[in-house]
């Protein structure tokens, strides 16, 4: 089957901006809130959101970190698990944490992310923001609070998010095998 484009450049941009405004509704000036992007691909979204938020709020001090969850996965020894960098130079004790990933599918990555995050303190609360929510595919009871787009897909399909930092264009594509 031909790949189906779900979001192109302009809509992609609008979606990210909408997510930012939704965040501002809840977190005001982000004084007590931090963004954490999950490695590898959630970090692009987290950085984009930080950048947009700072533009909208006209401030420069929103905290944003990268979290690698490889060592916390439950499928160790089932597949290749090579770690990425964790880069969190702040503590999350008593903060409102916004966990960010590109695609929410089985929920296992987020489950591992919740575990991994606790090594940096006990947050006041944790919210989940994803760009794509693949409905009806969850293996664990995890739902996102902020969602870019929701799609229905079957297990054999793949959702690919392209970032202009990597491939020169922002795009979300549904690939069928």
């Amino acid at each position, binding site marked *: 089957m031909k790949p189906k484009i779900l979001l192109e450049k302009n809509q992609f941009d609008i979606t990210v901006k909408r997510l930012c405004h939704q965040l501002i509704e809840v977190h005001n000036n982000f004084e007590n809130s931090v963004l954490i992007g999950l490695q590898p691909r959630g970090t692009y979204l987290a950085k984009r959101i930080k950048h947009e938020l700072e533009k909208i709020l006209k401030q420069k001090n929103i905290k944003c970190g990268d979290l690698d969850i490889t060592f916390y996965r439950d499928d160790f020894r089932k597949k290749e698990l090579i770690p990425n960098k964790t880069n969190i130079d702040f503590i999350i004790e008593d903060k409102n944490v916004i966990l960010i990933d590109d695609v929410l599918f089985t929920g296992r990555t987020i489950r591992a992310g919740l*575990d991994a995050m606790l*090594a*940096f303190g006990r947050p006041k609360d944790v919210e989940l923001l994803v760009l794509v929510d693949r409905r009806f595919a969850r293996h664990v009871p995890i739902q996102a609070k902020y969602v870019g787009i929701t799609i229905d897909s079957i297990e054999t399909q793949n959702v690919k998010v392209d970032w202009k930092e990597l491939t020169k264009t922002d795009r979300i594509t549904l690939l069928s095998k």
Partner: protein
Amino acid sequence: MSYLSQKHLLGIKNITKNDIELILSTAQNFKEVINRPIKKVPSLRDITVANLFFENSTRTRLSFELAQKRLSADVINFSASNSSVKKGETLVDTVNNILAMKVDMIVMRHSSPGAAIFLSKKVNAKIVNAGDGAHEHPTQALLDAFSINEKLGSIKDKKIVIVGDILHSRVALSNIFCLQKLGAKVKVCGPQTLIPKYITSLGVEVELDLKKALEWCDVANMLRIQLERQDIKFFPSLREYSMLYGLNKQILDNLGKKIVIMHPGPINRGVEITSDVADSNQSIILDQVENGVAVRMAVMYLLAGKQE
């Protein structure tokens, strides 16, 4: 390439450059983990590791044990001095009895060269060599490479001299293999009697003059004189050895450049290295110890993750 090519870590000689680079880059991630407020990850929570130390060790043993605990593995410790080895049990029997208790990985130090390789052929568990006689000490070489890379930014084309008792040193042999695979130039330096006869066949140069060796190098790795392995006298006295091959502040300051000083421990202060050198800001001896935990975590993480 993101898996190790080997099921065990028996020595540096039989692993590839890719393996070494994979271990070092994974160790980088673990170094970040052990500097967090909570230094523990659950990766090896379903693995049981036995530490079999048939020979004395402080640093390596503690480092391995800490690495295992930081990875959430279950650990059992065994030392030959208070075991049935004293009652005449063979190595294979001892290990098979331990494995019957469902152990997945063995970390072993033994005084016989080749003990780890022998064991890997006889038993069904992943083996990590923590030093076998005067043969190899792979995790020490890996942590030395990691420390040099951390200090100097790369290893390729760097000049490293290993000074001291090369003949009895497993650290020297593993370091030579490891550094050469990573593209460094290696010299050995020490009294002629403590330099193995065929060492040049490994592609290393021999330098008998300490000052010349130090002038040439970027990094000096000072080894301990292993009196416990010396059955005959290889040099007249420790005093004479330290006068000719001991590194002191005066020699270091007269070099006209800042070289990096390493030592695998335990240090004999005043013999191969003086206190003011060991504690100077050119010495990375304690960094080596810290990096040892991260490197050993990486080795066990990668071995445990390797599929059958």
